[in-house]
């Protein structure tokens, strides 16, 4: 008879999944599996909505005002010199002028300071229509070579400026090759102002990304001369112009830090800038500007942030008022069953 018994249970056992399904007793896990975890279920009540919009607005507007004020307090002087610095005779053919290395590129600009400028005063050069963010340009560098110099041989990423005369270039790549090389000197009534050109690059770049023992090699020796040359005796980590330049800008219009003037300039003072207008922006019609500006906790002068905050904040407040008005005029009682679709439908019919 063992078959009888075996068969009845066997047929039952065989046909169904006798997976022993043991309900887990652990409370937390139980709640988890039963999708019953304690939960916070916020509901957007009119009060919440109005308050949220209002609070955001109330926070944003003052922040915007503060930012705007910070931006307004910055004194910024800009002088475009790319046209003015070309002697009259060459103005019809600026490219020929700039490419002709025999002509001196000396130029003098007078800048009138309108407001008192407090040290430190930052000197920038500003270029536009200059695509430092072009993919061909951005990719044309070798971080390893910048750090290890000639020890790092593979410079394929620097195309098309990886070798010259059969020898590798240090630093290779288009970015370095097109280094900006106008230079500025500032004179005020009392005499020449000292321009601090140290510490203009990011500290981490100086210390970790550009080799302390890597010196320029075979740089700007090719048939095509791009931008500035580098002193082959100074290691890359000290060539701060290059380091600044190598941080490619995101937009075709950009400023880069040139140096810092460590003394105040009074209002109405006139600064004379002696500059060498070496860099070719004439081929592509880019402007060149020199910018003197103070700085504060927010950085340079740009009212956009403040305005954006104020605009957004105002908008939030307006919405909040709008909701409040609608709510007062035509409140919907919350949790009112008449708003259910089944109730609405029966009302309609």
């Amino acid at each position, binding site marked *: 008879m063992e*078959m009888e018994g075996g068969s*009845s249970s066997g*047929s039952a056992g*065989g*046909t*169904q*999944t006798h*997976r022993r*399904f043991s309900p887990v007793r652990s409370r937390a896990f139980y709640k988890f599996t*039963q*999708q019953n975890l304690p*939960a916070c*279920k916020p509901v*957007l009540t*009119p009060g919440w*909505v109005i308050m949220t*919009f209002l609070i*955001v607005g109330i926070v*944003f507007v003052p922040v915007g005002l503060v930012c705007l004020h910070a931006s307004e307090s910055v004194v910024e002087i800009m002088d475009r010199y790319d046209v003015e610095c070309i002697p009259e005779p060459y103005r019809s053919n600026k490219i020929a002028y700039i490419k002709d290395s025999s002509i001196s590129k000396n130029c003098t600009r007078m800048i009138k300071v309108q407001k008192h400028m407090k040290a430190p005063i*930052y000197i*920038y050069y500003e270029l536009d229509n*200059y695509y*430092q*963010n*072009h993919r*061909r340009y*951005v990719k044309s560098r070798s*971080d390893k070579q910048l750090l290890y110099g000639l020890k790092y041989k593979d410079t394929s990423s620097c195309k*098309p400026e990886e070798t010259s005369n059969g020898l590798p270039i240090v630093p290779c790549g*288009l970015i370095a090759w097109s280094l900006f090389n106008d230079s500025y000197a500032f004179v005020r009534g009392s005499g020449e102002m000292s321009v601090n050109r140290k510490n203009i690059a*990011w500290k*981490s*770049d100086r210390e970790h*990304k550009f080799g302390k023992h890597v010196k320029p090699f075979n740089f700007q020796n090719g048939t095509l001369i791009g931008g500035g040359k580098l002193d082959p005796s100074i290691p890359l980590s000290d060539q701060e112009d290059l380091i600044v330049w190598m*941080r*490619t*800008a*995101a*937009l*075709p219009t950009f400023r880069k*830090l040139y140096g810092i003037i460590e003394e105040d300039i009074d209002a109405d003072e006139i600064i004379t800038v002696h500059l060498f207008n070496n860099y070719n922006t004439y*081929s*592509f*019609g880019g402007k060149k500007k020199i910018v003197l500006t103070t*700085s504060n*906790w927010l950085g*340079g002068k*740009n009212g*956009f*942030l403040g305005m*954006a*905050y104020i605009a957004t904040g105002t908008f939030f407040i307006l*919405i909040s008022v709008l909701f409040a008005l609608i709510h007062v005029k035509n409140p*919907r009682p*919350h*949790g009112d069953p008449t708003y*259910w*679709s*089944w*109730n609405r439908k029966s009302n309609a019919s």
Partner: protein
Amino acid sequence: MPRTGRIREKLRWSKIYTFSCIRHPESINADAGPSLSLSLSLSLPLPGPGHSRIVRCNQPRAHKRKPLDYPTNYISTTKYNIVTFLPKAIFEQFRRVANLYFLLAACLSVTSISPFSPVSMIAPLAFVVGLSMAKEALEDWRRFVQDMKVNLRKALVHKGNGRFSNKFWHKIRVGDVVRVEKNQFFPADLLLLSSGYEDGICYVETMNLDGETNLKVKRSLEVTLPFEDDRSFKDFTATIRCEDPNPSLYTFAGNLEHERQVYALDPSQVLLRDSKLRNTSYIYGVVIFTGHDTKVMQNATESPSKRSRVEKKMDRIIYILFTVLVLVSLISSLGFAVKTKLEMPSWWYLQPQRGDNSHLYSPSTPGLSGIFHLVTALILYGYLIPISLYVSIEVVKVLQAMFINQDLQMYDEETGNPAQARTSNLNEELGQVDTILSDKTGTLTCNQMDFLKCSIAGFPYGLSSSEVEIAAAKQIASEESGGSVQNGGGIDYWENGGSGFGSSPEIELEGGITCKIEKPRKPMIRGFSFEDDRLMQGNWMSEPNPGTILLFFRILAVCHTAIPELDEETGGFTYEAESPDEGAFLVAAREFGFEFCRRTQTSVFVRERYPSSAEPIEREFKILNLLEFNSKRKRMSVVIRDENGQLLLLCKGADSIIFDRLSKNGRMYEADTSKHLNEYGEAGLRTLALAYRKLEESEYSAWNTEFLKAKTALGPDREAQLEQAADMIEKELVLVGATAVEDKLQKGVPQCIDKLAQAGLKIWVLTGDKMETAVNIGFACSLLRQGMKQIRLSPMNKELITQDANKAVKEDIQKQITNASQMIKLETDPHAAFALIIDGKALTYALEEDMKHQFLSLAVDCASVICCRVSPKQKALVTRLVKEGTGKVTLAIGDGANDVGMIQEADIGVGISGVEGMQAVMASDFSISQFRYLERLLVVHGHWCYKRIAQMICYFFYKNIAFGLTLFYFEAYTGFSGQSVYDDWYMILFNVLLTSLPVISLGVFEQDVSSEVCLQFPALYQQGAKNLFFDWYRIIGWMANGLYSSLMIFFLNIGIFFTQAFLRGGQTADMAAIGTTMFTCIICAVNMQIALTMSHFTWIQIVLVWGSIATWYLFLLAYGESSPLVSGDAFRLLVEALAPAPIFWAVTLLVAAACNLPYLIHISYQRLYNPMDHHVIQEIKYYKKDVEDQIMWTRERSKARWATKIGFTARVDAKIRQLKGKLHSKVSSLSGQTVVATPPPDVL
């Protein structure tokens, strides 16, 4: 112990039965003599093409070599094996357009065309594809395990020398002789050799194959009868030549060659795999077809891979995004070509004249460069296509499936079966179901009959109420008592079938019967729920008509084909009956004191117990003739001679049939009985009428000769002759009474159907059973009710033997459909409900190409549709018709192999993992162990999953648009050169790590309302069925939101970081700084957005949303600390540049706020002035109004349902309307009198 099965007295059923055991002429002749059969064998259908199979019985060795090397009995339903997994699964993965695109992008990423480094393209792809493949492998493994469970079942197989021993199913070979015991499944397709009955008959339950609940009789050839015990197989050999494997369940052609004689075989000798041996102690059989050759496996079609509507729509969105991608890329490459041609020559710093042979940036060939750039751009803007969408959805669905599997409220304690999401692809489809197509037996009913009530001599007996009555009574009680039902009662509503009504234990039912609703009917006797002391313990003797009652009981005890079986333990009898009804009658008779205890070849013995004597009296009833039941006759009778020599014809059958055959003076109780029958029908009970007739000796013998003549007649019209003969005697009957048997519904089925109907779902019942049975169940489930107009479609009864019979029938059906449609159109009463009941025959015509749409539109107009006597194929066809005709989501639910077609055809197939075989479950997408779990599966899980997935996909598109488009804007500033403003690593992490987990948590944990509320407000389900959360309006809204966000993120950043210094030290922002800030803004904005999208925060969501933002900063910190050669410009970016700069933090805050502004306004506005249903519920819950104002809550709960015409709620409503109508007419007639306008409490 080979002989144990034959304890029971041997019976030769073939002598008792009249209809079923008709022997085919060939085999009759074969019995007549071997010589004759030999000569006949020549005229047998010769094995032609398709009939090449040769089986050497009892010589399994012969089948180990070619050409008889047939496949083993091993079955496998897996998609892959170890070898094919990798190639096949990879192929599957890259059939998705998006994945293929990313594969191409990854291939191109090793060239210089790509804007990104190879690793940033390959890593996410590998991750995503790897994850999907792992899931695929897991699911296939599960399938494998299930297969192995079947393969490792054991069966008794002849090992040689007359010894049988256990063997795994998968080791069984063609030619093996197998012994199958009672209630076991056949391991393969077998040829029946002999059985526990002397004449080689056995009973087979084929529910798994065709869904029919009646047992089928199979009989062996006469020649194999001697092989009736283990030893006799020692030297048994034979050869079977038969048809090749084919899927037809009802045909079989072949012959058996035994000792040089050839015998023809027909389907009645073949036992199919997955059917079950019943009522027969054992059988011996030879394996003909094994494994995938078996008929049932031949029928199994590869389960189609189903995709949900949401996913299909998602594909369309992806195509839209691809279009956008191509468009943007075209703009970009055009811009690039123009810039390269016109401006690049003057950009000396790029050394334009020194092209590097690749023509990538060559001003001289701008066209070529432009084309190269198109490829670059296509890769660059690839972030518009969410690569991780598929994999995230898959992860989410697996987790959702896990929750479904783990749900204890869908866990069946009795069988230990949890609900199972077998494929997780369709979770959200569960929330959009429109039509449910349900099987009946095993799904709605347990296939167990309970004797509940009876009407004898015009008196109704039986106090217990059917489940339908209980459910309806509860409904009324709850509507009356208003708020007394406790909040959250939705659950115990289920649990205590009849209890839970402590406050109102007695509910008056119509007809003055008091129905006690207490803890479910006392300790149950299986098959007997009758409660009425008037008939029990012999009390019937003091009833008005004891003689009629006695006759009633005797009919129950004698008129059947069952066999009693002594239960050794209790000493009582259990019965093995052909149908469960019959079993219930015998149990009832036993309980009334008429115990059927023995059957011999000629007699039935009944132990009758009377209160007057302590010992039961055993009476013998000689069975002279047995006219058994079939679906055409709808009645069965026996002719008996009782101990007094009185000849009696006892008959039971469908009431309509019996009433037609009553004699003039036999109609005494007709009026009362038919009134009771109506009541029983309304209560969802199966009814039969009982009648008898006294026969005169002469009359009988005249008839008997006629009958014997018919019985022994040869030729095709033998059956017709028999029927005619039976007709002659089955008339002039005297009505005794009627029985009402409850086809026991599965637990909670009426409630579940009611809720589903309230949720706006349509329910169709497709059953292989008879029309009457199906209609009864329709009543029991409240799919039908009194007052519903029933449209019955069935072909004309006339047997037209003309050749255009088909045409005539078809025209007839066509006419019926047209008439019915017309009738519905003309109906003006808004509450009128129609029910369509269609027969399988009629369905074959209705499903024909030219008629099916007309049929469908009629069916859709009807509140409920019941299709009876449908074949498995028709089930599938009906399902397809509904699916394709209405374009809505269909769900098919069933438990047997006959439902497989429908389960596979429907958008969602649900299998009941009950007691029966596994075919339905194997083919299904979800399996549950009880029909009632369907409610929770759909209304809770479906609703949640739909909303989760819909919101998740919308959000995914939003975030990728918001991110991807910033890349495009930036291009405009780089001369369209294909430079990205973000570091490669940021982009890898964006989809994989930084934004994926919160959205997964949204997809897994979001709950708009709790599960209790989902169940209490079934109308919420329509949000999914109407697709409110994934319509184009919403999708485009989200995309617009993404567009807006991308604009905000990019231009605010550009404006703010413009050219000025952003650090105290005077340094200006470079590309890395702006890119990183912009990316920070994106991370904050999209994570804030998802927080706004969620309405349900557990600690998990909070951790994941904040964690994602924190991860970004941590990553930036860690990345900045890594070697400058790895991080490049991002080296110490956060520490040195961004974190000290207030502007960085200011921008993040501003952008995050600005990006979410429109969405915030939108949801605030919507909530305040145009709330959706779930919003109102959330508010009520939030203010705890449901606790404070319970009356409102209960009232609303009862209102929150879809206008429905089915379910017992609708039934109660209809009843109330009817009573109100009556009341109104009363009021108008009795004007002047004050009348209370509320309906009386005792409705129903």
